[in-house]
Structure formats: C-alpha cells, structure tokens
C-alpha cells in the first residue's frame, strides 16, 4: 500500500518536473522572441522616425493640405504615428513568433499554439476595437457637446454624455463578443442598455425640443400663401453682421 502511494507520488513529481523542464525553455523561447522583436521594433521605429524627419515628412504632408492622417496622429506628428505603428507591429509579430517557438518546445502531439495564437489574435483585435471605440466615443462626445452648445441646446451635456456612453457600451459589447466571453448574456445586456440609452435620449430630446417641433409642424402645415403687398418694404430689424 505504502509502496503504491510512494510510486504514485514519485511518478507525479516526475511528471511535474518533466512538464516544468518542457515549459521553462518554451517560456524562455517566448520571452526571447518577444524581447528580440521588441528591440528590432524599437530600432526600426527609430530608423523610420529619423528617415521621415530628415525627409521633412510632416511638413510635406501639411503643405499638401490633404492630410487627414495628421488628425489621428499623436502629438501633432504623423511621423510619430508611423513610428509607433512600426514598433507595435513588431511587438505583435514577436508575440506570434514567441508562441510558435513555445509550441515547438512541446512534444509533437501538443497543439498549444493552435489554441493560443487564434485567441491572442482575437485579444489583439479586441484591444484595437477598445481603443477605436474609446477614441470614437470621445470624438463624438466633444462633437455633440460643441455642436449642441453652439446651437444653445439646454441638454447639451446630457446629450453628449448619452452619445459617449452609447458608443462605449457598444464597444464593450463588441469586445466581449470578440473574445467570446459571456455569450447570450452580453447580447441581452447590451440590447437592454443600448435600448435604454436610446429611449432616454429620445425622450430627453423630444421633450426638450417640443416647442421647436410643434413650430416646425405648424410651418409645414400652413399652405395658404401670404398675399404680397407691392408697397411693402422690408425694414432691417437686425443690423448685426458678423461678415
């Protein structure tokens, strides 16, 4: 009995040690690939930045006056944007290579990378969706806020916050769906939240703009043309001209 327990324990310990012996080189391979590709990425980014700076890329782009890329670039520099894209591209490639290398360290029947790589790819996609969603939410929030303030809508802040959270909720649902987390619960929760926000906004805008809408409807239903007095001369009631 005791011998059997001892044998089972020693076999377990052996298996743990074997797994550890396989896992550690795999981890080292992964880290090594990641570090090397990160270093290459940093080098390439520096090279690209130096080359584009020497070529006065930012100035050329600004001079062409057709540079929507500049609006998306960090700290006013399209050069910085391209350099960062190069760097992070290398880091992601490093991740993939590292996982493949780790997979190679396992015995032939192991298919770790077959599961992990697609999930990493999904995670990268999810992170990109999250970043894009956050940027779009902030952009739309400010656009709506400024537009509504200039239109003197009293519920400007409320409207902008509603738009922001609408986009953020949509982004969160997309991220979770992309990562295959939550399943039907996320869809249901998203539907309820999204519908709730839209309904709230519709009620707020509808109630707030009641007078405007009724005036607009009155105007559109008045079909009788007003008779024109030939002697009538319009008097300028407002002499203010901004231009």
């Amino acid at each position, binding site marked *: 009995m005791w011998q059997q327990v001892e044998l089972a324990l020693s076999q377990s310990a052996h298996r743990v040690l074997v797994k550890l012996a396989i896992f550690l080189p795999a981890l080292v391979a992964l880290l090594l690939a990641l570090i090397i590709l990160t270093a290459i990425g940093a080098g390439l980014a520096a090279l690209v930045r130096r080359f584009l700076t020497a070529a006065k890329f930012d100035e050329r782009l600004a001079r062409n006056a057709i540079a929507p890329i500049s609006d998306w670039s960090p700290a006013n520099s399209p050069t910085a944007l391209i350099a960062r894209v190069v760097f992070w591209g290398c880091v992601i490639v490093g991740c993939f290579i590292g996982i493949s290398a780790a997979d190679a360290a396992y015995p032939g029947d192991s298919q770790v990378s077959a599961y992990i790589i697609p999930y990493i790819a999904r995670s990268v996609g999810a992170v990109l969706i999250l970043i894009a969603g956050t940027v779009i939410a902030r952009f739309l929030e400010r656009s709506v*806020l400024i537009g509504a303030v200039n239109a003197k809508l009293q519920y400007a802040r409320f409207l902008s916050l509603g738009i922001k959270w609408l986009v953020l909720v949509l982004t969160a649902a997309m991220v979770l769906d992309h990562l295959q987390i939550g399943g039907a619960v996320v869809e249901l929760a998203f539907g309820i939240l999204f519908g709730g926000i839209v309904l709230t906004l519709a009620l707020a805008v509808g109630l707030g703009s009641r007078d405007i809408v009724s005036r607009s409807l009155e105007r559109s239903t008045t079909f009788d043309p007003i008779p024109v007095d030939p002697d009538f001369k319009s008097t300028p009631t407002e002499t203010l001209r901004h231009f």
Partner: protein
Amino acid sequence: MASTQTNIASTPMPPTGTMPASAPGTATAAGSLLVSLVPLAPEALETMLANLSLAFAGETVLVATPDAAPQLSSDSPLRLLPYTVTTVSTTPWILTAADYLNTYKLAQENRASACVLLGAESQTLHPEAIRALGKSALQTDLTTAHYNLGPREGLVNSAILYPVTRALFGTRPRFPLAIDLGLSLRMAERLAAVAQRFTAAGQNDAFLWPLSEAAIAGYSIAEVNIGPRVLPQPVTPDLNTILTQIAGSLFADVDAKASFWQRARGVQPPYPITQSAPVAEPPPDIASMLEAFRFAYTNLHEIWSLVLPPNSLLGLKKLSLLHPESFRMPDNLWARIVYDFILAYRLRTINRGHLLGALTPLYLAWAASHLTLISSGTAPEKHIQDVAVAFETDKPYLVSRWRWPDRFNP
C-alpha cells in the same frame, strides 16, 4: 525669397518699382488692365459694364466675365473676355482659389500688366472706386479695398482677421479678406501659384490670404477707400460654420508662414479714426450672445481648459459673472485667447474642428463686449484699433510659445 514651385508658366516681370504707371486722365495702353468679374445677374452685369465704361472712359480695359455678355457699342472702352466657370462656388460671397487662378490665366493669355478682381455685388461699386483700384493696381503689387461698414458689421474681420494679420505680418490694410483687389501681374502669379495647390487638391473654394503672401514676398501693398458697397453675405447663415471656415483658413495660413512672421517686426502707425455717429442703443442680439457665452462657459470649460492657460480661464470666469451693461472683455484677454487658439491649432491639442467650434462662444463674448462698448459712446474704430494694438503688444507671447510650447505658462 525662394519662388514657389508651380506648373504655371513664369512671366517675365519688370523689377520692383518699375511697374507701368498711368497718370490720371491719360489713356491706358491697350490690354494693360484686366478687370475680372465673378458671376453676376444679367441686370447687375449691365450696371457693372456701364460703371466700368464710366470708370475707364477713354481707356481700353479687358473685362473677363463668366456671364453671357450683352453687345457693346463700338466706341465702348471695354473688351469683353468671356470665360467658362468650371465649378460652381459654394462660397460666392468671397474670392476663392479658383477666382485667383482664373484671373491670372486670363491676364497671362491677354498680356495684361495688372488685374482688378471684383467680388460679388460689384455692380454697387462706384465708378470712381473701380478707377482708383485700377490705377493703384498699375502702381502697386497688391491693392485691397477699404470698406465703409457700419459699426455692427464685419465683426469677425474686426475681432480676428484684421488684428491677427496686422500683428503677425505687419500689414496695415483693414480688410485682409477684401473681395475687391488690385493685383500686379507678379502678385497675381504668386496668388495663382498658391491657388493652384488648392485646386490641384480639389479645394476650389479655399480662401487665400493676399496680404500675408504680399508681405512674405516683400511686395508693395496699398489700400483704397472705395466708399459704400453692398457686401454679399454668406449663403449659410450659420455663424459656427462660417467662423470655422474663415478662422480655420487663417490659422492654417499663420501655421504655414510661421518662419516669416516670427521674424517680422514693426508696429503699424495709428489708423485714422473716422468719427462715426454714436450708436444709441445696444442691438437686441447682445442678450443672446451673452447667454450663448455663459452657457458655453458652464459646458465647454473642460475643453477650453485644454487650450487656454489658467490666467485666461480666470479672466473668462470673471467675465461670465459680469452684468450685461458692464460686460467688457479686456483687449489683452481676447488677444491671448486668439493666440492660444492659434497655438492649439498648430499643436493639434484637440481636433481642429472641435477647436474652432469652441472658439465661437468666445467670439460672441467679444462681439457682445464690443457692441456694449460702442453703445456707450466709444467710436467703433477706436476700439478695433485698440484691439489690434493689444495683438501687436502680445505677439512676443505667441512667438515664444510657438517656439517652446511646453514652457510653463501661468
């Protein structure tokens, strides 16, 4: 000065100061002056041609018009040059890149030595004014029109365009975006070269800033008082859209010409202030302007704080608490605000569309302050000149922060 690279054929020009001059009353050489018109209604075109005949009686003048021109009598001094407008302008109330390009091409093809470019509603110009523009165009590289506007007109020009252009480029003319211009051929060529960059990018309706171009090239600049004139108004009455368009174009021009204006020195001599009748009462729009500003202060404070330094924000806070009758935005505060917005435009602190949208309520605050001030008896022109001086005084701040944007800024 390096010449701009374009694919417009270069025209040999006489050196500066040797532009052909015509003394009053003497006949201009055939084809020496080209008057370029924008599209006009048939009746307006007839009036315009009659005015041109009066303005240049006894001289031969080329008139470029995109409209179907009526038959002229054989003794008319005008020689019509019909041309085809390729694209319909969405901003017919202002001269656009396509107008400058058309004018230069026609001037070059017809060997004109100077051009007069007249904007919309030009039939309301007095013949003497047209003559003065034409005469000045033959003697000076750039002649801009000086309009006699009412105290409540042209406020964007008074608040932003004039003071910024004067302070940064050291130019004197009061209307940087004038729609009636006299151009020497080399000035027209330079403007056409700039215009071609825009038209090549499909931006036919882009605005050009002739004063800054002339200042950079070191060309001579003059201003002609053209008296009363009906100024066309934007088709879209939305202030926010138009202000974004105009201020965005000016800020982009300032950004593009930074290497020049950082070096440019000089303070303009005091402008002659015409005594206008005091404005009796504030217009009713002041209340809505103040309301717009106060509403924006409570909602856009977060966005303004990304652009403006704490000192300016404090100034705005004090302003938001003032009563309508004592509402007065200090000139130096307004100058600082505009400069900070120019800096933010350059640095892309926030999206440029958002930035220019956030400027609108501040401009309305300035306009309300200006209107309140002139209703209390101050001459409108005096206040406008004071604002321009404040911009000149504060220029070192802009230059300093342009060079070192991250420097501590209280």
